[in-house]
């Protein structure tokens, strides 16, 4: 799976979780860029991404990722 393909899948999950078809995430996207990305939705994001890609994050990864690019790095290591 290419980085672009992972980004496309991650973007799909973000749009679904936040009910917003206009979201486009990039390497440097953080919670500061998406108003509803709070701690509860972060849990939903992590769970949905794990299901989408059939992989698991560690607790340190789930709570320590600095941006979406870091999230994609971890996904690429596992798929």
């Amino acid at each position, binding site marked *: 799976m290419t980085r672009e393909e992972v980004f496309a899948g991650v973007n799909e999950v973000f749009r679904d979780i936040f009910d917003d078809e206009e979201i486009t995430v990039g390497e440097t996207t953080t919670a500061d860029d998406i108003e509803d990305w709070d701690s*509860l939705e972060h*849990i939903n994001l*992590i*769970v949905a991404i794990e299901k989408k890609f059939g992989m*698991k*994050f*560690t*607790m340190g990864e*789930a709570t320590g990722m600095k941006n979406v690019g870091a999230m994609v790095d971890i996904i690429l290591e596992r798929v």
Partner: protein
Amino acid sequence: MNRYTYAELTVGMTEAFQVTIRPEMLEQFRQITGDENPLHTDEAFAAGKGYPGRVVYGMLTASFLSTLAGVYLPGERSLILETDVKFAKAVQIGDTLTVRGTVKEKNDLFSFIVLQVEMRNGDGEKVLRGRMKVGVLDGE
């Protein structure tokens, strides 16, 4: 009150309790929320809309989900994160509801459970169904 830890909870585990809706519950709910809608406060209005009596507030019915999680499943360690409910049938004053929750999923990473929830009236009809995500707090 139950005191299930996250480790003690298993998929398929079920807890249930019963509650009878009394008129004073509607009055207390009206005072707390300020919801004066006549469907809940005026017998004649409710009858005119085709109901046998005042309709119980849906959100009053749903509030027993707080009891389900906070007292029964998981009980003391409960922290409700999300609730998604559908009001399948109107509830009437005097109805005795059976409130039931079943553990459908566990998430080890964040220590929460997903409950499938339902409430049935005395005739066995489903009046509410839904899903709750409930955190299970650790520590003593």
